[in-house]
């Protein structure tokens, strides 16, 4: 195709477009066109129509059709590969030509040749209108070319701000609930619902310190055992504490049988420890 084009000395489409084909007179011996430069068959038709140098409204459709078909024929002779679009248009135009030349028969169905020609004319005019419009558009005063925006826009400072809402009632409720909760928690702690090992140990160490007689654990703790609920935790904690204190050599412990009372006394010395065993 490239070779064929060279042979045909194609006119670059850009130039054709730029010149509006005005100076490309019809006197040219033959129509040599670079088909690649056209935006499809309608564009080619428009170009040919413009070559007629008349208003599209008064254009000779028949002449236009003949020029197009001639162009296609020419391209074929040069073995130019034409896109299918161009060939379809050629077929349609050949049909249009036949309709235009042969008077409309009485029982003919479909559009008359004149109607088909009018449609073609409409499409050409519409395309031309859009082409002109695009030219008018690009020649407007354009932003960044003819007209300019503020070169140094000043920043709008967005201050993010939170606005808080709370009512006095919210505030007082929160305060009252919080203080009350804490006050009641404090009271519970004062009741010592649970004996910790540490507490038990302190109490035992304090109580047994001066005592050298064997004493039942129960009795040591009697005055601390306020109710049956506390008894278990106190017993458990103090027994654990007892074992710890025995291991550290601060206490001696003895029990005569399973579940029998546990007796404690302060450590007497090496001998008494052996005796206790």
């Amino acid at each position: 195709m490239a070779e064929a084009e060279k042979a045909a000395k194609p006119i670059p489409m850009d130039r054709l477009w730029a010149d509006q084909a005005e100076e490309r007179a019809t006197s040219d011996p033959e129509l040599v066109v670079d088909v690649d430069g056209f935006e499809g068959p309608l564009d080619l038709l428009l170009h040919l129509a413009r070559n007629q140098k008349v208003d599209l409204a008064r254009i000779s459709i028949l002449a236009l059709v003949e020029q197009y078909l001639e162009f296609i024929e020419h391209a074929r002779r040069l073995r130019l590969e034409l896109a299918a679009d161009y060939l379809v248009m050629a077929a349609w135009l050949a049909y249009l030509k036949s309709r235009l030349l042969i008077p409309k028969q009485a029982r003919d169905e479909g559009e008359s040749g004149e109607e088909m020609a009018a449609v073609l004319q409409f499409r050409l005019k519409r395309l031309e209108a859009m082409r002109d419009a695009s030219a008018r558009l690009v020649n407007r005063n354009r932003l960044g070319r003819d007209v300019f925006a503020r070169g140094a826009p000043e920043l709008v400072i967005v201050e993010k701000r939170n606005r808080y809402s709370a009512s006095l009632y919210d505030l007082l409720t929160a305060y009252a609930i919080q203080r009350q909760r804490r006050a009641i928690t404090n009271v519970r702690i004062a009741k010592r619902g649970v004996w910790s090992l540490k507490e038990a140990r302190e109490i035992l160490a304090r109580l047994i310190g001066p005592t050298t007689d064997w004493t039942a654990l129960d009795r040591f703790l009697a005055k601390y055992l306020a109710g049956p609920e506390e008894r278990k935790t106190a017993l458990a904690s103090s027994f654990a504490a007892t074992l710890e204190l025995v291991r550290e050599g601060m206490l001696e412990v003895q029990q005569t049988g399973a579940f029998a009372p546990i007796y404690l006394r302060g450590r007497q010395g090496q001998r008494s420890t052996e005796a206790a065993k």
Partner: protein
Amino acid sequence: MSEGSKAKVIPFSADAVPGSTAERVHLAEAVRMAEAIVFASAEPVSEAQLEQRLPAGAPIEPVMAELQQIYSRRGVNLVRVGPGWAFRTAPDLAFVMTRDAVQQKKLSRAALEVLAIIAYHQPVTRAEIEDIRGVETSKGTLDTLLETEWVRMRGRRRTPGRPVTYGTTDRFLDHFGLEEIRDLPGIEELKGAGLLAQRMPSNFSVPMPPADTDELTADEDPLTDIDLEELGLLTPRATDD
């Protein structure tokens, strides 16, 4: 508005326009504020944005009309761009401004033609563009136009296949110095000649492109996220999103 700034805001009564000296002073202050706000921005400022920032009740229309009048013969003009306002250098001073011109990407003839078709015929589908031009539109051409942000997908035509419709943006108006789409050069004559119709009109009642290009026409559906995904403009969402 911050507490501190409230102190400075002079309250406005909506009917302040022709009135007492105090009201005129208030109007003049609103004009100054609008001037500062629009002048500060390179982009058009919408009336909604202005309303938010001017004192409550300031009458936007007379304020902007007055400002436009003040600047009408200056080196900088106040222009309306779609729903907004912007200051732009006066077009007759283009010759002084050439130095500031930024090298702009040149659009191909095809792209310009498609742009014009979209502008004058919007909302328009790709098939309709191709019908007008009598040739296929390469995807690259539409992409280029979408990239310039002069063209956008508007919605989908309520016809079989639900084709995407294209239209222009406010940026398009801004770039080409148009207040609105109705200001496109020659649009009235083209409409009169029936050249904005899809088919050769048997009657000449050709609908104008809608004044508000953002509003979908009766036969357009809005684009959904699913549509955008389909069109490759949104990455598909993770399913657990």
